[in-house]
Protein backbone atom coordinates (compact mmCIF):
# COMPACT_ATOMS: atom_id res chain seq x y z
CA UNK A 1 0.00 0.00 0.00
CA UNK A 2 1.11 3.54 -0.50
CA UNK A 3 0.08 6.27 1.86
CA UNK A 4 0.06 10.01 1.39
CA UNK A 5 -0.80 12.56 4.03
CA UNK A 6 -0.84 16.26 3.54
CA UNK A 7 -0.87 18.83 6.34
CA UNK A 8 -2.53 16.28 8.57
CA UNK A 9 -3.86 17.55 11.88
CA UNK A 10 -5.36 15.69 14.77
CA UNK A 11 -6.96 17.22 17.83
CA UNK A 12 -7.70 14.67 20.52
CA UNK A 13 -10.53 15.12 23.03
CA UNK A 14 -9.46 17.61 25.65
CA UNK A 15 -8.13 20.12 23.13
CA UNK A 16 -4.85 18.28 22.90
CA UNK A 17 -3.22 18.88 19.53
CA UNK A 18 -1.52 15.59 18.79
CA UNK A 19 -0.59 16.26 15.18
CA UNK A 20 0.01 19.76 13.92
CA UNK A 21 0.32 19.52 10.16
CA UNK A 22 2.25 16.43 9.10
CA UNK A 23 3.06 15.85 5.43
CA UNK A 24 4.50 12.52 4.32
CA UNK A 25 4.44 10.35 1.23
CA UNK A 26 5.15 6.67 1.82
CA UNK A 27 5.59 4.51 -1.25
CA UNK A 28 4.61 0.88 -1.62
CA UNK A 29 7.20 -1.39 -0.03
CA UNK A 30 8.93 1.44 1.77
CA UNK A 31 10.21 0.88 5.30
CA UNK A 32 10.10 3.85 7.56
CA UNK A 33 10.87 4.43 11.21
CA UNK A 34 9.29 7.22 13.21
CA UNK A 35 11.34 8.43 16.17
CA UNK A 36 10.90 11.24 18.60
CA UNK A 37 10.41 12.06 22.29
CA UNK A 38 7.33 10.74 24.06
CA UNK A 39 4.30 12.87 23.35
CA UNK A 40 5.63 13.82 19.93
CA UNK A 41 2.64 12.24 18.20
CA UNK A 42 4.14 8.93 17.04
CA UNK A 43 1.21 6.83 18.22
CA UNK A 44 -1.31 9.36 16.92
CA UNK A 45 0.33 9.31 13.50
CA UNK A 46 0.18 5.51 13.34
CA UNK A 47 -3.44 5.46 14.55
CA UNK A 48 -4.40 7.87 11.78
CA UNK A 49 -2.49 5.86 9.16
CA UNK A 50 -4.28 2.73 10.40
CA UNK A 51 -7.70 4.40 9.98
CA UNK A 52 -8.32 3.99 13.69
CA UNK A 53 -8.54 7.74 14.29
CA UNK A 54 -10.09 10.19 11.90
CA UNK A 55 -7.90 13.21 11.21
CA UNK A 56 -9.31 16.55 12.26
CA UNK A 57 -8.00 18.31 9.19
CA UNK A 58 -5.73 17.64 6.25
CA UNK A 59 -5.71 14.94 3.62
CA UNK A 60 -5.13 11.21 4.03
CA UNK A 61 -4.98 8.91 1.04
CA UNK A 62 -4.31 5.18 1.18
CA UNK A 63 -3.75 3.71 -2.27
CA UNK A 64 -5.08 6.96 -3.64
CA UNK A 65 -8.39 7.01 -1.79
CA UNK A 66 -9.52 8.74 1.38
CA UNK A 67 -10.53 5.81 3.61
CA UNK A 68 -13.06 7.96 5.46
CA UNK A 69 -15.05 8.47 2.28
CA UNK A 70 -15.15 4.80 1.31
CA UNK A 71 -18.33 2.76 1.64
CA UNK A 72 -18.40 0.55 4.70
CA UNK A 73 -17.61 -2.73 2.94
CA UNK A 74 -14.63 -1.29 1.09
CA UNK A 75 -13.30 0.31 4.25
CA UNK A 76 -13.45 -3.09 5.93
CA UNK A 77 -11.54 -4.65 3.05
CA UNK A 78 -8.96 -1.87 3.28
CA UNK A 79 -8.61 -2.40 7.03
CA UNK A 80 -8.11 -6.12 6.61
CA UNK A 81 -4.98 -5.17 4.66
CA UNK A 82 -3.60 -3.06 7.50
CA UNK A 83 -1.89 -4.84 10.37
CA UNK A 84 -1.12 -2.93 13.54
CA UNK A 85 1.29 -4.02 16.26
CA UNK A 86 0.14 -2.19 19.37
CA UNK A 87 2.53 -1.08 22.06
CA UNK A 88 0.50 -2.92 24.69
CA UNK A 89 -0.98 -5.85 22.80
CA UNK A 90 -4.79 -5.81 22.89
CA UNK A 91 -5.21 -9.50 23.68
CA UNK A 92 -7.83 -10.89 26.08
CA UNK A 93 -6.00 -12.54 29.01
CA UNK A 94 -7.98 -15.77 28.77
CA UNK A 95 -7.52 -16.19 25.03
CA UNK A 96 -5.15 -18.88 23.81
CA UNK A 97 -2.20 -17.87 21.66
CA UNK A 98 -3.48 -19.88 18.71
CA UNK A 99 -6.77 -17.94 18.75
CA UNK A 100 -5.06 -14.61 19.30
CA UNK A 101 -2.83 -15.16 16.28
CA UNK A 102 -5.57 -16.53 14.03
CA UNK A 103 -7.68 -13.45 14.83
CA UNK A 104 -5.28 -11.58 12.54
CA UNK A 105 -7.00 -12.96 9.47
CA UNK A 106 -10.62 -12.44 10.55
CA UNK A 107 -10.94 -9.67 8.01
CA UNK A 108 -9.81 -11.95 5.20
CA UNK A 109 -11.78 -14.97 6.31
CA UNK A 110 -15.49 -15.06 5.79
CA UNK A 111 -17.97 -14.55 8.54
CA UNK A 112 -18.60 -18.25 9.24
CA UNK A 113 -15.00 -19.37 9.03
CA UNK A 114 -14.13 -16.79 11.66
CA UNK A 115 -16.79 -18.13 14.00
CA UNK A 116 -16.06 -21.79 13.27
CA UNK A 117 -12.41 -21.18 14.15
CA UNK A 118 -13.49 -20.51 17.73
CA UNK A 119 -14.83 -24.05 18.00
CA UNK A 120 -11.75 -25.59 16.38
CA UNK A 121 -8.77 -23.47 15.27
CA UNK A 122 -9.00 -23.12 11.50
CA UNK A 123 -5.27 -22.97 10.77
CA UNK A 124 -3.13 -24.41 13.55
CA UNK A 125 -0.14 -24.84 11.24
CA UNK A 126 -0.29 -21.19 10.16
CA UNK A 127 -0.51 -19.87 13.71
CA UNK A 128 2.34 -22.13 14.74
CA UNK A 129 4.53 -20.94 11.88
CA UNK A 130 3.91 -17.30 12.74
CA UNK A 131 4.73 -17.91 16.41
CA UNK A 132 7.81 -19.91 15.45
CA UNK A 133 9.29 -16.83 13.83
CA UNK A 134 9.27 -15.24 17.29
CA UNK A 135 10.33 -18.39 19.17
CA UNK A 136 6.93 -18.84 20.77
CA UNK A 137 5.64 -21.90 18.89
CA UNK A 138 5.97 -23.97 22.04
CA UNK A 139 3.29 -21.89 23.72
CA UNK A 140 0.71 -22.34 20.95
CA UNK A 141 -2.07 -23.59 23.24
CA UNK A 142 -1.17 -21.54 26.30
CA UNK A 143 -3.37 -18.75 27.50
CA UNK A 144 -2.21 -15.16 27.02
CA UNK A 145 -2.27 -14.47 30.76
CA UNK A 146 0.41 -17.14 31.26
CA UNK A 147 2.87 -15.02 29.27
CA UNK A 148 5.20 -12.23 30.31
CA UNK A 149 4.77 -8.73 28.91
CA UNK A 150 7.57 -9.22 26.44
CA UNK A 151 6.19 -12.55 25.21
CA UNK A 152 2.76 -11.00 24.83
CA UNK A 153 4.22 -8.22 22.74
CA UNK A 154 5.72 -10.83 20.42
CA UNK A 155 2.32 -12.53 20.13
CA UNK A 156 0.99 -9.20 18.88
CA UNK A 157 3.75 -9.21 16.25
CA UNK A 158 2.97 -12.84 15.34
CA UNK A 159 -0.68 -11.93 14.78
CA UNK A 160 0.32 -9.26 12.28
CA UNK A 161 2.78 -11.58 10.55
CA UNK A 162 -0.02 -14.13 10.21
CA UNK A 163 -2.40 -11.46 8.93
CA UNK A 164 -0.06 -10.78 5.97
CA UNK A 165 -1.18 -7.18 5.59
CA UNK A 166 -0.14 -4.88 2.77
CA UNK A 167 0.66 -2.17 5.31
CA UNK A 168 2.33 -3.00 8.62
CA UNK A 169 2.09 -0.38 11.33
CA UNK A 170 4.16 -1.08 14.42
CA UNK A 171 3.76 1.20 17.42
CA UNK A 172 6.81 0.68 19.64
CA UNK A 173 6.65 -3.04 18.87
CA UNK A 174 9.63 -3.96 21.03
CA UNK A 175 9.25 -1.64 24.02
CA UNK A 176 9.12 -4.53 26.52
CA UNK A 177 11.84 -6.68 24.96
CA UNK A 178 15.48 -7.02 25.85
CA UNK A 179 17.98 -5.79 23.22
CA UNK A 180 18.62 -9.18 21.56
CA UNK A 181 14.93 -10.03 21.26
CA UNK A 182 14.10 -6.50 20.18
CA UNK A 183 16.65 -6.73 17.42
CA UNK A 184 15.36 -10.14 16.34
CA UNK A 185 11.73 -8.97 16.37
CA UNK A 186 12.34 -5.81 14.40
CA UNK A 187 14.38 -7.98 12.06
CA UNK A 188 11.38 -10.29 11.56
CA UNK A 189 9.13 -7.34 10.74
CA UNK A 190 11.78 -6.10 8.35
CA UNK A 191 12.10 -9.52 6.65
CA UNK A 192 8.32 -9.79 6.34
CA UNK A 193 8.04 -6.36 4.76
CA UNK A 194 10.97 -6.89 2.44
CA UNK A 195 10.06 -10.45 1.55
CA UNK A 196 6.55 -9.62 0.47
CA UNK A 197 7.31 -6.10 -0.69
CA UNK A 198 4.84 -4.51 1.69
CA UNK A 199 5.01 -1.16 3.45
CA UNK A 200 6.28 -0.97 7.02
CA UNK A 201 5.95 2.03 9.31
CA UNK A 202 7.30 1.57 12.82
CA UNK A 203 7.63 3.98 15.69
CA UNK A 204 10.63 3.17 17.81
CA UNK A 205 11.92 4.41 21.10
CA UNK A 206 15.43 3.07 20.55
CA UNK A 207 17.18 5.19 17.96
CA UNK A 208 19.91 2.62 17.30
CA UNK A 209 17.29 0.05 16.18
CA UNK A 210 15.72 2.58 13.85
CA UNK A 211 19.06 3.52 12.31
CA UNK A 212 20.06 -0.12 11.92
CA UNK A 213 16.97 -1.52 10.24
CA UNK A 214 15.21 1.29 8.41
CA UNK A 215 16.26 3.04 5.20
CA UNK A 216 14.17 6.08 6.05
CA UNK A 217 13.93 7.89 9.37
CA UNK A 218 11.26 10.43 10.25
CA UNK A 219 11.86 12.55 13.34
CA UNK A 220 8.67 13.75 14.96
CA UNK A 221 8.52 16.52 17.52
CA UNK A 222 5.49 18.37 18.90
CA UNK A 223 3.23 16.78 16.30
CA UNK A 224 5.30 17.94 13.34
CA UNK A 225 8.03 16.42 11.19
CA UNK A 226 11.45 17.63 12.34
CA UNK A 227 13.40 15.72 9.72
CA UNK A 228 12.86 13.02 7.12
CA UNK A 229 16.08 11.45 5.90
CA UNK A 230 17.95 8.19 5.31
CA UNK A 231 19.97 7.09 8.36
CA UNK A 232 23.32 8.19 6.94
CA UNK A 233 22.01 11.71 6.71
CA UNK A 234 20.67 11.77 10.25
CA UNK A 235 23.37 13.61 12.18
CA UNK A 236 23.98 13.49 15.92
CA UNK A 237 23.04 17.10 16.03
CA UNK A 238 19.63 16.40 14.46
CA UNK A 239 19.03 13.73 17.07
CA UNK A 240 20.07 15.97 19.92
CA UNK A 241 17.74 18.66 18.69
CA UNK A 242 14.93 16.13 18.32
CA UNK A 243 15.14 14.90 21.91
CA UNK A 244 16.46 18.21 23.20
CA UNK A 245 15.01 19.18 26.51
CA UNK A 246 13.43 15.79 27.35
CA UNK A 247 16.64 13.86 27.72
CA UNK A 248 20.27 14.84 27.70
CA UNK A 249 21.17 11.69 25.77
CA UNK A 250 19.56 10.12 22.75
CA UNK A 251 17.50 7.05 23.82
CA UNK A 252 18.94 3.72 22.71
CA UNK A 253 18.65 0.16 23.88
CA UNK A 254 20.34 -0.29 27.27
CA UNK A 255 20.89 3.48 27.17
CA UNK A 256 24.32 2.95 25.69
CA UNK A 257 25.73 5.95 23.90
CA UNK A 258 24.79 5.80 20.26
CA UNK A 259 27.51 4.04 18.32
CA UNK A 260 27.35 4.84 14.70
CA UNK A 261 29.27 3.22 11.92
CA UNK A 262 31.33 5.58 9.86
CA UNK A 263 29.02 7.05 7.27
CA UNK A 264 31.35 6.08 4.46
CA UNK A 265 31.18 2.26 4.38
CA UNK A 266 27.47 2.37 5.09
CA UNK A 267 26.77 4.79 2.32
CA UNK A 268 28.68 2.52 0.00
CA UNK A 269 26.15 -0.23 0.59
CA UNK A 270 23.29 -0.33 -1.83
CA UNK A 271 19.99 0.53 -0.20
CA UNK A 272 18.31 -2.74 -1.05
CA UNK A 273 20.44 -5.28 0.69
Amino acid sequence: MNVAIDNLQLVLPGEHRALAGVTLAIGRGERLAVIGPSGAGKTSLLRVLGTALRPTAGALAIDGADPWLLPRARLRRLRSGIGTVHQSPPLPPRQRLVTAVLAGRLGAWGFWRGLASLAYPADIAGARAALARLDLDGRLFDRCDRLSGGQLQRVGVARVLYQQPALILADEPVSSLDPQLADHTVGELHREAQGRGVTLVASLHAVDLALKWFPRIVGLRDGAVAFDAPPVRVSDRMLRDLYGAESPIVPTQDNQPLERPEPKPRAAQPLCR
Partner: protein
Amino acid sequence: MSLHPVAAPGPPRDPALWPRLGLGVAALAVLWPALEIAEFRPATLLDPKNLEVMGRFLGTFFPLVLTPEFLALVVRSTVETLALATAGIALAIGLGLPLAMMVSESLSVSRIGPARRAWLAPAVRTPLRALLIVMRSVPEIVWALLFVRAVGLGPAAGVLAIAINYAGMLGKVYFEIFEAGDTRPARAILESGGARVHAFAYGILPVAVPEIVSYSVYRWECAIRASVVMGFVGAGGLGQQMELSMRMLAGGEVATMLAAFLLLILLADTVSAVLRKALV
Protein backbone atom coordinates in the same frame (compact mmCIF):
# COMPACT_ATOMS: atom_id res chain seq x y z
CA MET B 1 -19.22 31.11 76.45
CA SER B 2 -16.92 28.29 75.53
CA LEU B 3 -17.74 24.60 75.10
CA HIS B 4 -14.25 23.69 76.25
CA PRO B 5 -13.56 25.11 79.68
CA VAL B 6 -10.00 26.22 79.90
CA ALA B 7 -9.57 24.60 83.26
CA ALA B 8 -10.13 21.02 82.00
CA PRO B 9 -8.62 20.54 78.56
CA GLY B 10 -9.81 16.93 78.21
CA PRO B 11 -9.44 14.94 75.00
CA PRO B 12 -11.16 16.60 72.03
CA ARG B 13 -14.66 15.42 71.26
CA ASP B 14 -15.18 13.26 68.15
CA PRO B 15 -16.38 15.73 65.50
CA ALA B 16 -18.41 12.94 63.87
CA LEU B 17 -20.78 12.77 66.89
CA TRP B 18 -23.43 15.23 65.70
CA PRO B 19 -23.59 14.07 62.04
CA ARG B 20 -23.94 10.47 63.22
CA LEU B 21 -26.64 11.31 65.71
CA GLY B 22 -28.48 13.32 63.06
CA LEU B 23 -28.30 10.48 60.50
CA GLY B 24 -29.52 7.99 63.08
CA VAL B 25 -32.55 10.15 63.94
CA ALA B 26 -33.29 10.73 60.27
CA ALA B 27 -33.17 6.98 59.53
CA LEU B 28 -35.63 6.31 62.34
CA ALA B 29 -37.90 9.09 61.08
CA VAL B 30 -38.06 7.40 57.67
CA LEU B 31 -38.34 3.84 58.98
CA TRP B 32 -41.14 4.41 61.48
CA PRO B 33 -43.82 5.51 58.97
CA ALA B 34 -42.68 2.69 56.65
CA LEU B 35 -43.32 0.10 59.38
CA GLU B 36 -46.68 1.74 60.13
CA ILE B 37 -47.78 1.68 56.49
CA ALA B 38 -46.67 -1.93 56.12
CA GLU B 39 -48.81 -2.82 59.16
CA PHE B 40 -45.81 -4.37 60.85
CA ARG B 41 -46.89 -5.12 64.43
CA PRO B 42 -44.67 -7.82 65.94
CA ALA B 43 -46.96 -8.03 68.97
CA THR B 44 -49.68 -9.75 66.89
CA LEU B 45 -47.28 -12.64 66.34
CA LEU B 46 -47.20 -13.28 70.06
CA ASP B 47 -50.95 -13.05 70.51
CA PRO B 48 -51.97 -16.42 72.09
CA LYS B 49 -54.81 -16.95 69.62
CA ASN B 50 -52.53 -16.45 66.63
CA LEU B 51 -49.83 -18.59 68.20
CA GLU B 52 -52.32 -21.40 68.51
CA VAL B 53 -53.36 -21.12 64.82
CA MET B 54 -49.75 -21.17 63.69
CA GLY B 55 -48.95 -24.04 65.99
CA ARG B 56 -51.81 -26.08 64.58
CA PHE B 57 -50.63 -25.38 61.02
CA LEU B 58 -47.07 -26.42 61.81
CA GLY B 59 -48.36 -29.40 63.79
CA THR B 60 -49.94 -30.84 60.67
CA PHE B 61 -46.41 -31.02 59.17
CA PHE B 62 -45.59 -33.97 61.37
CA PRO B 63 -45.13 -36.77 60.84
CA LEU B 64 -43.56 -36.37 57.38
CA VAL B 65 -45.17 -38.49 54.69
CA LEU B 66 -42.52 -41.00 53.62
CA THR B 67 -44.47 -43.66 51.75
CA PRO B 68 -42.59 -45.02 48.72
CA GLU B 69 -45.28 -43.82 46.29
CA PHE B 70 -45.18 -40.30 47.68
CA LEU B 71 -41.37 -40.21 47.76
CA ALA B 72 -41.34 -41.28 44.11
CA LEU B 73 -43.65 -38.37 43.34
CA VAL B 74 -41.39 -35.98 45.26
CA VAL B 75 -38.32 -37.18 43.39
CA ARG B 76 -40.11 -36.81 40.07
CA SER B 77 -41.24 -33.28 40.97
CA THR B 78 -37.76 -32.34 42.17
CA VAL B 79 -36.23 -33.49 38.91
CA GLU B 80 -38.94 -31.60 37.08
CA THR B 81 -38.12 -28.41 39.02
CA LEU B 82 -34.44 -28.82 38.27
CA ALA B 83 -35.13 -29.45 34.58
CA LEU B 84 -37.50 -26.50 34.43
CA ALA B 85 -34.98 -24.09 35.95
CA THR B 86 -32.12 -25.38 33.82
CA ALA B 87 -34.04 -25.31 30.55
CA GLY B 88 -35.39 -21.86 31.42
CA ILE B 89 -31.93 -20.47 32.15
CA ALA B 90 -30.49 -22.02 29.00
CA LEU B 91 -33.16 -20.32 26.93
CA ALA B 92 -32.66 -17.08 28.85
CA ILE B 93 -28.92 -17.13 28.08
CA GLY B 94 -29.61 -17.88 24.43
CA LEU B 95 -31.95 -14.93 24.29
CA GLY B 96 -30.13 -12.52 26.61
CA LEU B 97 -26.64 -12.85 25.12
CA PRO B 98 -27.51 -11.68 21.58
CA LEU B 99 -29.76 -8.97 22.97
CA ALA B 100 -26.95 -7.70 25.20
CA MET B 101 -24.60 -7.76 22.25
CA MET B 102 -27.03 -5.75 20.16
CA VAL B 103 -27.58 -3.02 22.73
CA SER B 104 -23.91 -2.80 23.65
CA GLU B 105 -22.14 0.32 22.46
CA SER B 106 -18.61 -0.80 23.09
CA LEU B 107 -18.85 -2.65 19.77
CA SER B 108 -20.18 0.34 17.93
CA VAL B 109 -18.57 0.19 14.51
CA SER B 110 -19.64 3.73 13.77
CA ARG B 111 -17.17 4.94 16.36
CA ILE B 112 -14.29 4.04 14.11
CA GLY B 113 -16.08 3.96 10.79
CA PRO B 114 -17.82 6.46 8.60
CA ALA B 115 -20.89 7.32 10.61
CA ARG B 116 -23.09 7.79 7.62
CA ARG B 117 -26.09 6.00 9.07
CA ALA B 118 -25.44 7.18 12.59
CA TRP B 119 -29.17 7.42 13.37
CA LEU B 120 -29.64 3.73 12.66
CA ALA B 121 -27.78 2.33 15.67
CA PRO B 122 -29.71 4.22 18.38
CA ALA B 123 -32.92 3.52 16.46
CA VAL B 124 -32.25 -0.20 16.94
CA ARG B 125 -30.77 -0.01 20.43
CA THR B 126 -33.45 2.07 22.13
CA PRO B 127 -36.41 -0.25 21.44
CA LEU B 128 -34.30 -3.29 22.30
CA ARG B 129 -33.35 -1.73 25.61
CA ALA B 130 -37.02 -1.00 26.28
CA LEU B 131 -37.82 -4.63 25.47
CA LEU B 132 -35.23 -5.81 28.01
CA ILE B 133 -36.78 -3.55 30.64
CA VAL B 134 -40.27 -4.94 30.01
CA MET B 135 -38.98 -8.52 30.11
CA ARG B 136 -37.35 -8.12 33.47
CA SER B 137 -39.75 -5.72 35.19
CA VAL B 138 -42.83 -7.92 34.75
CA PRO B 139 -42.37 -10.49 37.55
CA GLU B 140 -41.82 -14.12 36.58
CA ILE B 141 -45.03 -15.14 38.35
CA VAL B 142 -47.04 -12.88 36.06
CA TRP B 143 -45.28 -14.36 33.03
CA ALA B 144 -46.10 -17.80 34.46
CA LEU B 145 -49.80 -16.92 34.82
CA LEU B 146 -49.77 -15.71 31.23
CA PHE B 147 -48.08 -18.82 29.84
CA VAL B 148 -50.21 -21.20 31.89
CA ARG B 149 -53.13 -19.76 29.95
CA ALA B 150 -51.25 -20.15 26.67
CA VAL B 151 -49.70 -23.62 27.00
CA GLY B 152 -51.71 -25.08 29.86
CA LEU B 153 -50.72 -26.30 33.33
CA GLY B 154 -47.28 -27.84 33.61
CA PRO B 155 -43.57 -27.10 33.54
CA ALA B 156 -43.53 -25.73 29.96
CA ALA B 157 -45.17 -22.55 31.23
CA GLY B 158 -42.50 -22.25 33.92
CA VAL B 159 -39.71 -22.69 31.38
CA LEU B 160 -41.13 -19.91 29.23
CA ALA B 161 -41.66 -17.60 32.20
CA ILE B 162 -38.08 -18.04 33.38
CA ALA B 163 -36.72 -17.72 29.85
CA ILE B 164 -38.43 -14.37 29.26
CA ASN B 165 -37.99 -12.81 32.68
CA TYR B 166 -34.41 -13.97 33.18
CA ALA B 167 -33.36 -13.08 29.65
CA GLY B 168 -34.28 -9.51 30.58
CA MET B 169 -32.13 -9.60 33.71
CA LEU B 170 -29.23 -11.47 32.10
CA GLY B 171 -29.31 -9.17 29.08
CA LYS B 172 -28.95 -6.11 31.24
CA VAL B 173 -26.15 -7.52 33.36
CA TYR B 174 -24.29 -8.99 30.36
CA PHE B 175 -24.53 -5.62 28.68
CA GLU B 176 -23.02 -3.94 31.73
CA ILE B 177 -20.23 -6.52 31.84
CA PHE B 178 -19.44 -5.91 28.16
CA GLU B 179 -19.32 -2.17 28.67
CA ALA B 180 -17.10 -2.42 31.74
CA GLY B 181 -14.51 -4.74 30.24
CA ASP B 182 -11.46 -3.83 28.20
CA THR B 183 -12.72 -2.89 24.73
CA ARG B 184 -9.31 -2.57 23.09
CA PRO B 185 -9.18 -6.19 21.92
CA ALA B 186 -12.50 -5.75 20.13
CA ARG B 187 -11.42 -2.47 18.59
CA ALA B 188 -8.22 -4.07 17.34
CA ILE B 189 -10.30 -6.72 15.53
CA LEU B 190 -12.53 -4.07 13.96
CA GLU B 191 -9.48 -2.06 12.94
CA SER B 192 -8.06 -5.03 11.08
CA GLY B 193 -11.24 -5.59 9.12
CA GLY B 194 -13.11 -8.07 11.31
CA ALA B 195 -16.89 -8.09 11.48
CA ARG B 196 -18.79 -6.86 14.51
CA VAL B 197 -19.65 -10.40 15.54
CA HIS B 198 -15.97 -11.37 15.21
CA ALA B 199 -14.94 -8.46 17.38
CA PHE B 200 -17.46 -9.59 19.94
CA ALA B 201 -16.49 -13.27 19.89
CA TYR B 202 -12.72 -12.69 19.78
CA GLY B 203 -12.41 -9.43 21.70
CA ILE B 204 -15.19 -9.02 24.24
CA LEU B 205 -16.44 -12.48 25.13
CA PRO B 206 -13.07 -13.87 26.30
CA VAL B 207 -12.70 -10.88 28.62
CA ALA B 208 -16.22 -11.21 29.98
CA VAL B 209 -16.61 -14.99 30.27
CA PRO B 210 -15.77 -15.45 33.97
CA GLU B 211 -18.22 -12.79 35.08
CA ILE B 212 -20.88 -14.01 32.67
CA VAL B 213 -20.67 -17.59 33.87
CA SER B 214 -20.60 -16.56 37.50
CA TYR B 215 -23.71 -14.41 37.17
CA SER B 216 -25.57 -16.95 35.03
CA VAL B 217 -24.96 -19.70 37.57
CA TYR B 218 -26.21 -17.43 40.33
CA ARG B 219 -29.34 -16.79 38.26
CA TRP B 220 -29.78 -20.53 37.79
CA GLU B 221 -29.91 -20.83 41.58
CA CYS B 222 -32.55 -18.08 41.68
CA ALA B 223 -34.49 -19.83 38.93
CA ILE B 224 -34.74 -22.99 41.05
CA ARG B 225 -36.22 -20.97 43.91
CA ALA B 226 -38.50 -19.05 41.58
CA SER B 227 -39.75 -22.22 39.94
CA VAL B 228 -41.29 -23.30 43.26
CA VAL B 229 -43.20 -20.04 43.57
CA MET B 230 -44.36 -20.33 39.97
CA GLY B 231 -45.50 -23.87 40.67
CA PHE B 232 -48.18 -22.38 42.91
CA VAL B 233 -49.85 -20.86 39.85
CA GLY B 234 -49.65 -24.16 37.98
CA ALA B 235 -46.29 -23.92 36.26
CA GLY B 236 -45.15 -27.42 37.21
CA GLY B 237 -42.47 -28.89 39.46
CA LEU B 238 -42.30 -29.12 43.25
CA GLY B 239 -44.29 -25.93 43.71
CA GLN B 240 -47.33 -27.28 41.92
CA GLN B 241 -47.34 -30.45 44.04
CA MET B 242 -46.81 -28.38 47.18
CA GLU B 243 -49.81 -26.25 46.31
CA LEU B 244 -51.97 -29.35 45.75
CA SER B 245 -50.96 -30.81 49.11
CA MET B 246 -51.61 -27.51 50.87
CA ARG B 247 -55.04 -27.30 49.36
CA MET B 248 -55.75 -30.80 50.66
CA LEU B 249 -54.39 -29.74 54.08
CA ALA B 250 -51.81 -32.56 53.89
CA GLY B 251 -49.19 -30.91 56.09
CA GLY B 252 -46.95 -33.98 56.19
CA GLU B 253 -46.66 -33.99 52.42
CA VAL B 254 -45.85 -30.29 52.39
CA ALA B 255 -43.10 -30.85 54.97
CA THR B 256 -41.54 -33.68 52.98
CA MET B 257 -41.48 -31.52 49.89
CA LEU B 258 -39.98 -28.60 51.84
CA ALA B 259 -37.21 -30.95 52.95
CA ALA B 260 -36.64 -32.02 49.35
CA PHE B 261 -36.55 -28.38 48.33
CA LEU B 262 -34.01 -27.61 51.02
CA LEU B 263 -31.77 -30.38 49.71
CA LEU B 264 -32.20 -29.09 46.16
CA ILE B 265 -31.13 -25.58 47.15
CA LEU B 266 -28.13 -26.94 49.04
CA LEU B 267 -27.16 -28.91 45.94
CA ALA B 268 -27.53 -25.85 43.70
CA ASP B 269 -25.42 -23.78 46.11
CA THR B 270 -22.67 -26.36 46.05
CA VAL B 271 -22.70 -26.79 42.28
CA SER B 272 -22.60 -23.05 41.68
CA ALA B 273 -19.81 -22.54 44.22
CA VAL B 274 -17.75 -25.27 42.56
CA LEU B 275 -18.39 -23.88 39.08
CA ARG B 276 -17.48 -20.35 40.04
CA LYS B 277 -14.35 -21.42 41.87
CA ALA B 278 -13.21 -23.41 38.85
CA LEU B 279 -13.48 -20.32 36.69
CA VAL B 280 -11.75 -17.65 38.72
